[in-house]
């Protein structure tokens, strides 16, 4: 294992020290591993709290600041944070208008946020609503499984609902908006290589030179299928096909994110975006906004994911609203 670390056990704690040193828009509660917007709790505003395992940076801590989250709880690498952290963050951002928990649909995250919401209700009286993001088309959804994973749409949702929260909208409206966004977005990812969890010391799985994993999540877990390595053009088709088959995108302009898994150079991500853009152009649906880069990652995994969101004028307006975070920054 070759990593820029001191001790595998200290990676998350020491990364939080670095985030605090680098980013003026946040403050860090090191004991509870919470990244707060510096001016939280913000008056006349619903608090937005998210969190999850570390190793997905910039998600979630990199999305704390004006126009996005009020707080993010950092778990161990790929491990959900705990209910006491989430409860503390909830108290820390509540200005009397309630708090929205944004949760990616992973068993651990859902259970820990559930316990946190129960504790908040029992101990504080803070109104908490929860939206669970589940946009990954690689997982077949059914009553008998844990359901689809929350992946790329989380980034877009935190931006859009963050902008709406900044306008002073009430909790119920924000929760409804979040669910609309979740329903209108889909993602699909692939990996060229695995990744190494520092405490594990070796790659989570092995991929031969001529293989790739199709339908991965963001925790270095193997994907749905192992298939022969293909060209970027073919991979673009393989990512897009299940997304388009799952949801009708024809009604709206799109917000498209071509996301790197952490270990893929930008030149390849732009090349991939070019391939994706060609396919979308053939479909005749306009792309209103796009993101190309590393926004929700899986440590040093090479590969990418594609997220498509069916937007409308209102969502585009929210997208363009000012944002000032480590991960997204414009309009300020």
């Amino acid at each position, binding site marked *: 294992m070759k990593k820029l670390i001191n001790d595998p056990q200290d990676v998350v704690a020491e990364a939080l020290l670095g985030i605090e040193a680098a980013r003026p828009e946040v403050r860090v509660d090191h004991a509870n591993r919470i990244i707060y917007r510096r001016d939280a709790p913000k008056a006349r505003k619903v608090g937005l709290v998210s969190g999850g*395992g570390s190793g997905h940076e910039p998600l979630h801590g990199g999305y704390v600041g004006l126009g996005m989250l009020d707080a993010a709880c950092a*778990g*161990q*690498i*790929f*491990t*959900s*944070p*705990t*209910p*006491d952290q989430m409860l503390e963050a909830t108290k820390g951002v509540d200005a009397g208008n309630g708090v929205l928990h944004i949760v990616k649909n*992973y*068993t*651990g995250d859902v*259970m*820990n946020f*559930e*316990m946190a919401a129960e504790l908040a209700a029992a101990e504080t009286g803070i109104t908490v609503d929860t939206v669970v993001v589940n946009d990954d088309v*690689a*997982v*077949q959804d059914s009553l*008998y*499984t*844990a359901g689809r*994973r929350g992946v790329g749409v989380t980034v877009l949702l935190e931006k859009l609902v963050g902008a709406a929260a900044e306008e002073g909208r009430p909790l119920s409206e924000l929760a409804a908006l979040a669910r609309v966004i979740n329903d209108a977005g889909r993602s699909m990812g692939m990996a060229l290589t695995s990744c190494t*969890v520092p*405490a*594990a010391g070796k790659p*989570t*799985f092995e991929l031969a030179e001529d293989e790739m994993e199709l339908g991965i*999540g963001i*925790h*270095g*877990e*193997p994907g*749905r299928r192992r298939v022969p390595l293909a060209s970027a053009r073919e991979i673009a088709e393989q990512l897009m096909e299940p997304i388009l088959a799952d949801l009708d995108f024809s009604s709206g302009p799109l917000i498209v994110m071509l996301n790197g898994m952490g270990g893929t150079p930008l030149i390849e991500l732009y090349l991939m975006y070019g391939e994706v853009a060609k396919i979308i152009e053939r479909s005749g649906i306009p792309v209103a906004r796009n993101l190309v880069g590393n926004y929700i990652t899986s440590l040093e995994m090479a590969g990418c994911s594609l997220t498509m969101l069916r937007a409308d004028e209102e969502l585009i307006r929210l997208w363009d609203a000012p944002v000032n975070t480590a991960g997204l920054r414009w309009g300020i």
Partner: protein
Amino acid sequence: MPSAVITIDQLTGWLRRFHQLVIKNQAELTELDSAIGDADHGINMARGMAAVIDKLDGEQPARVNDLFKTVAMTLVMSVGGASGPLYGTFFLRFAGAVGSVTELDTAALATGLHAGRAGVVERGKAGLGDKTMIDALSPALEAMEAVIKTGGDLAAAVTAARDAAADGRDATVPMVARKGRASYLGERSAGHMDPGAASMTLLFDALAAELAG
């Protein structure tokens, strides 16, 4: 004459042995989790149980319910992932069911374990055959129940539970996961043992070892 009760010292000993077994099997648990999950089960359980033992070294609760409440909250706050809430809920419900006592007889132990299982089922929304810790836990409790019904003693009940947990754990190998992160693999999850069922079996191993002295 075998003892008919398990004392609070033995219950604490159970937890210490569980900690030791988790450490001993940490790499294997993580290895199992690498195959079908996210490679952190051994690491997380070791961290959680180390925190539990630290806590008990500092202050040893005198009552069984306080002991398991402490265990539960420490696990919930230190493990994270899915295992934290699941084991946390297990011990929290165990604590609630046994009440403020200083020892448990066979029936009380079974009552606690049954309450724990109900909590895990409720929190994880999983059932038998979903390739989870329940596949070790449920057969263990049924085996225990069967021994109690036929008038067997505490040690016999716990030994039967341990054996049934191990069988249940082994039976998860061919299963296709329907809950937890392994469910994302679909058919590809078959052929691997469930790490949660493996750690749950260690819990019964530890209990049997403690009662054997």
